[in-house]
């Protein structure tokens, strides 16, 4: 009982405010897993309310959920931790649709959540692997800027790669 009260008193809570006004109360140890928040805490010190105008509540919530899980898993110095994290990461990205994945990736990148960005980029890579060039353009909203014939030339040069 006494030990749990000491941990709660030493844990500082931060308020994170998303672009749509939704706020989250998070332990400092969890929020500082995000590089951007860690920097703000170090620079601004005493501020307990941090505004994040580039992330909306839904995705900030998801990012923080991921941070919380990883922070919790890392506190018990169990050997199986890595395995638990890996398993949990797999679950976390399993059913994400493309749109959610995109917004989550943008949020994680903005918040400098390096490990989370890693996880999400790997997921994107596995989703696009093997897609046709036209599908890739659609996915990434890219318009081809090749002159007529140029694309054909590139295709011809490495035709074996398209088989």
């Amino acid at each position: 009982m006494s030990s749990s009260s000491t941990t709660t008193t030493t844990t500082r809570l931060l308020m994170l405010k998303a672009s749509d006004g939704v706020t989250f109360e998070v332990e400092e140890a969890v929020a500082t897993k995000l590089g951007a928040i860690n920097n703000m805490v170090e620079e601004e010190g005493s501020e307990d309310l941090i505004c994040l105008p580039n992330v909306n509540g839904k995705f900030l919530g998801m990012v923080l959920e991921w941070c919380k899980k990883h922070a919790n898993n890392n506190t018990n110095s169990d050997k199986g931790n890595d395995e638990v994290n890996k398993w949990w990461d797999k679950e976390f990205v399993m059913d994400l649709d493309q749109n959610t994945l995109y917004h989550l990736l943008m949020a994680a990148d903005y918040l400098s959540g390096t490990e989370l960005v890693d996880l999400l980029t790997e997921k994107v890579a596995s989703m696009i692997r093997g897609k046709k060039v036209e599908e890739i353009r659609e996915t990434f909203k890219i318009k081809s800027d090749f002159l007529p014939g140029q694309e054909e030339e590139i295709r011809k040069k490495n035709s074996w790669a398209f088989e």
Partner: protein
Amino acid sequence: MAYLPVEVVIDILARLPVKYLLCLRCVCKPWRSLIDSLDFIHFHILKSIETKTHFGLILRKGFQLFSVDLDAPNGAVELPHPLMSYSNDIKILGSCNGLLCICNVAEDIALWNPSTKMHRLLPFLSSERIRDPGMAIRGPRVYGLGYDAISDDYKLVRVSQFIGLDYQSFESEVKIYSLRTNEWKGIEDLPYALCYTRRMGVHVNGFLHWVVIRKVKVDESELVVALDIVAESYKEVPLPESLNNNQSHLDLGVLGGCLCVVANYREIDVEVWVMREYGVQESWMRLVKLGQSEELVSLKLVRPLTYSKTGDDILFENDHKKLFLCDLKSQRIKDVRICGMPDTFEALVCLSSLVSVNASRGRDSRNQESREDNTRMRDNFLSEGFKLVL
């Protein structure tokens, strides 16, 4: 996925296999420039090492090469190479960052990226000259392919040695080819005697390594010498303190980007050591100790190839006849059989990379395109020739 920051796009693309990236070159001009850029090619290599993906096993039997995709080992498939074999053995002279250097009986040497199917033939290098033909005989000749990160250059090294008729004195001649200059030149002689003709120098951290002895003498302790690819100078690599190198024969390998030494104690015991921090003697760690066992052909040649994806096992080549996995924790051995694998082979692990074999790499892409076209034409010609020989 509209408007992802460019560094995120790079991070995504760096996780894709080379063959697919060659297709993605025609998505748009910025992607083509990105995929062709030296920075991206380098980043792709680092990412592959970090995630332990895009590695393949190359198996050579005679003049044939086979490859096995280690990401999804479905079987060994023949890998057509760019040299005429004249029905003689093809030799593998070096391997570095996805490039292979191979040589045929006519001493044509090709620098070749099997993943992009690009290659270039090296300028002819005449055989070494014995300085005093009446006094010496030809000794070992070894090669090695290394990467010079300062000038972003790939260099092939040839070390030739002559043994005096007294069987004590020796001389060496060292030639080095630079991809940037496309020329061979001589460098400082290797002041050690090569122990035996191991197929190639082992490249780690910008250094090429060979097993050597100080003097040509029976029972001379074996050492590991490193050639600095940038400075083109030699130094000795400190060996593990508890390794008994006057009782054992040494062999070299690479595991997870770290140099490893295989100490073979008269074919009774074999130890595999890895130098976790390059050049630091205290960082040597013994990973595996193997004794004679029914599961091994013999302990004559036990060569580590790579860690498994989980990092729990090491894949080994044994006596050019079989592959096995050794569990690091239990030290237990498990046979590895791959469909289509030749009965005897020389094995090595090769990264799949986008590294170009053009000297003007990344400097002038238009120039590069036309060069590649020329290479392709030669490719077609040579592959037809190759079929005729077969």
